[in-house]
């Protein structure tokens, strides 16, 4: 009985305090859209950062004068190293072609002989692309037979690493600010909604309703508001993301899992925000309200 009463009262709250409920649901939706957009931005920034680290963290193995099968074997050996996701063998001819493309006019003077060594380009997992782990990898590869020299752009990687760390910290701080602002906004709006129904709470207390019983309809109402706000904001952010992908296809995430995850994530966050906001507001209100 208590549960059905709470559900009925929670639903009736939508009818009885329309404007207060609309205001708090809209506030929650705006807060969740902000969180969703920030999360999306952070996710895409992380992908760009990974790509950047992967590109800067490429390791080049310059080979001595070797036959193709030997180069192939070395390439496979490199591919089997921990953290390596891809290797690419660049023959002397290929190196010369790249040189010609990048050097442009005037490169003909070097064409008499193949002066560039063959090499293997090693791409590592972004998580592995740190100066320390790459230095260890380079040291290990340098000891291989038929390898002349192993290099990677350590100063640039250090620089990128430092800047990314700074950006991540700034992003985290901004994320905490956005989240706190959202919680503050939602909690205060819910508090106003509950304040608007102080007579109801006072009467419930007066006739002997227990505190958990008084809370239940408000919690249910908060959760329902969270569901509506979560779904609305999830669909809005997903729609915005799809619009963005239409203009910038490189932002698309393979597998198409991002949209559903956004909706489910924001729905969950909405439920949590609605529940927490209502719980905190109503608990405080029940404690402080005088019956007289």
């Amino acid at each position, binding site marked *: *009985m*208590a549960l059905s*009463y709470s559900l009925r009262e929670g639903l009736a709250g939508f009818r*009885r305090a329309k404007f207060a409920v609309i205001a708090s649901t809209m506030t929650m939706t705006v807060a969740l859209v902000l969180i969703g957009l920030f999360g999306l931005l952070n996710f895409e920034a992380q992908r760009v950062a990974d790509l950047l680290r992967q590109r800067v963290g490429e390791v080049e193995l310059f080979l001595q004068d070797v036959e193709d099968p030997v180069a192939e074997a070395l390439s496979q050996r490199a591919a089997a190293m921990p953290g390596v996701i891809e290797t690419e063998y660049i023959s002397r001819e290929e190196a010369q072609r790249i040189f010609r493309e990048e050097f442009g006019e005037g490169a003909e003077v070097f064409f008499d002989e193949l002066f560039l060594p063959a090499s293997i380009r090693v791409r590592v997992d972004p998580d592995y692309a740190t100066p320390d782990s790459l230095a260890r990898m380079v040291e290990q590869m340098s000891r291989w037979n038929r390898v002349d020299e192993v290099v990677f752009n350590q100063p640039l990687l250090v620089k990128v690493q430092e800047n990314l760390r700074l950006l991540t910290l700034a992003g985290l701080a901004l994320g905490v600010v956005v989240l706190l602002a959202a919680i503050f906004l939602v909690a205060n709006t819910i508090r106003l909604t509950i304040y608007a129904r102080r*007579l*109801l709470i*006072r*009467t*419930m*207390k*007066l*006739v*002997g*309703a*227990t*505190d958990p*019983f*008084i809370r239940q309809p408000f919690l249910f109402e908060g959760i329902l508001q969270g569901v509506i706000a979560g779904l609305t904001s999830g669909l809005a952010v997903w729609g915005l993301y799809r619009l963005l992908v239409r203009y910038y296809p490189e932002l698309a995430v393979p597998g198409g899992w991002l949209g559903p995850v956004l909706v489910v994530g924001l729905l969950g966050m909405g439920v949590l925000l609605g529940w927490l906001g209502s719980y905190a507001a109503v608990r405080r209100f029940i404690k402080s309200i*005088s*019956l*007289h």
Partner: protein
Amino acid sequence: MIEFRNVSVSYPLPGRARRAVLENLSLRIDRGEMVYLTGPTGSGKSTLLRMIYMDLLPEEGVVQVGDYRSDMIKSSDIPYLRRSLGVVFQDFQLLPDRSVYENVAFTLYVTGKSGAEVKSRVLGALARVGLSHKQKRYPHELSGGEQQRVAIARAIVNEPWILLADEPTGNLDPAVAEEILKLLIGLHRQGMTLLMATHDYRLVRTYPMRTLAFMSGQLVEVDPRTL
């Protein structure tokens, strides 16, 4: 029985000062009694009632209402104490968005009752206050006297043994005030303990009962006919 033993309570004033409202008060009201509580505004009548339904606990001394003692009660038990008493206020405190029936049934729903029991008890309470025919009306469609009757029905629907009435006639014209008092006296005659705060001395003189008056900060027993 309601008993106050050496009870003191004060309210904070701006700064650190406090104003004593009740000092070393002792009082006993037996089950089935009817008592008027009189005195000027701010003398402590409402404070005394609040201590009975334990919205306010004494700083010193003990208030005992039935089996509940203010010095031993857990906050989670206070709702159960309140189910054993009914309270009526001067400003009715009805829920404006619910009908007369729903306002009265609300008391039963929030204490876990349901179904046919609610219906029969609500209709019974409305019949006792003479408002069966207005059960579908909303508070704003009723006169002040009718709203107070709804408030009384809400207070008695749980069949409490005490009814506390805090200036129940304060907002009503004299004729309606007298009707409400008659209704309350009728409930008392059916066995309910009734404690009514009022400063309407005319009513007290017309329907004399045991009367306690706040005078110079002290609660004294007075002859209602001398008021």
